C-alpha cells in the first residue's frame, strides 16, 4: 500500500513537472525537499545541489525558457519502501535552434509520508553538453583519452 502511494506520487511529480504545472509539482514534495542533479552548473545553473521547494518553480521556469517542448518517456520504475527509482528518456526541444536534445535520465527519490523529500538525478552529461552546445567535443579530447584508456 505504502509502495503504491509512493509510486503514484513519483509518477504525479514527473507528469506535473514536465507539464509545467508548478502547483501540482509542489504538492508532491516535502517541505524539506532536497535535490542534487549531477551536471556542470556553468551550463545548467538550475541544477546541482538545491535545498527547498523554491527550486521547483525556478527549474520549471528555466527549462520553459530554454525549451519549447519537454517530453518524457518512462522506461523503468522500481519501488522499494520509501525509495523509488526511475529511468526515462527525455526529449527537450531547444528554442534557439529547434533541435531536440534527447537523453536517458536516472532519478532516485526518497519519500517521507507520501511526499518526495530527496531527489537525486543524473544523465550522460557529456553527451547532453554536446547537444546543448550544438557541437562535438569528443574529437578535441578523444586523442588524449585514447592514451588514457586501453582499447
Amino acid at each position: 500500500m505504502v509502495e503504491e502511494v509512493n509510486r503514484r506520487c513519483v509518477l504525479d511529480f514527473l507528469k506535473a513537472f514536465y507539464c509545467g504545472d508548478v502547483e501540482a509539482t509542489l504538492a508532491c514534495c516535502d517541505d524539506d525537499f532536497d535535490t542534487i542533479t549531477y551536471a556542470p552548473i556553468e551550463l545548467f545553473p538550475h541544477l546541482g545541489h538545491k535545498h527547498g521547494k523554491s527550486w521547483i518553480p525556478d527549474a520549471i521556469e528555466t527549462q520553459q525558457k530554454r525549451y519549447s517542448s519537454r517530453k518524457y518517456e518512462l522506461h523503468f520504475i522500481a519501488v522499494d519502501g520509501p525509495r523509488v527509482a526511475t529511468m526515462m528518456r527525455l526529449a527537450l526541444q531547444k528554442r534557439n535552434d529547434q533541435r531536440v536534445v534527447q537523453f536517458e535520465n536516472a532519478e532516485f527519490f526518497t519519500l517521507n509520508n507520501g511526499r518526495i523529500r530527496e531527489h537525486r538525478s543524473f544523465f550522460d552529461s557529456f553527451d547532453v553538453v554536446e547537444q546543448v552546445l550544438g557541437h562535438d567535443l569528443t574529437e578535441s579530447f578523444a586523442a588524449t583519452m585514447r592514451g588514457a584508456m586501453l582499447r
Partner: protein
Amino acid sequence: MTEHSLWRFSRALYRAINERHTDELDALIDDEVEWAIYGPIDMFPFFGARRGKAAVLDVCRQVADNVRVHRFDRESVMLGVDMAASMMRFSLTALNQNKPISLRLAQFAQFKGGKLSNMRVIVDTFDLVEQALGHPIHLPKIA
C-alpha cells in the same frame, strides 16, 4: 529467504573486474542479455550498447583491462521482483595512468530466471571525462 539476483551478480562482476575471474559472471548472464552504458564511446571503448552474453563478458574484460575498483558504496538500492535499481559511488584507478577516479552511477538491472537479462548504466560522464583528462573542461556560462 532467497538472495536477490542483484547481490550474486554484483559479487561476480566485482570478481570479474578486479580478479579477472569471469566463470561466476558467465553463469549469471542470460544468453540474450541487452546491455548499455551511456557515454562517449570514442573516449571509453567499453561504453555503449552490447547484445548477447559473449559481448557482455568481453566488455567486462575490457573494463578489467582499464580500471581497478578500490571501493564501491550503494547510496540507494531498490529491489523488486526480478529487477533492481541502485545509485552507486565507485573509487577506481585508471590502470594506464595510475590515476584515481571517483564515479557515481545509476544501474538498472532486470533478471530472468536469476540471470541478468537487461542492464542500463547511466554515468555523470562530464565529470568522468574531466577526471580522466586531469583538468576541467571550460564551458561557456549560460544564465
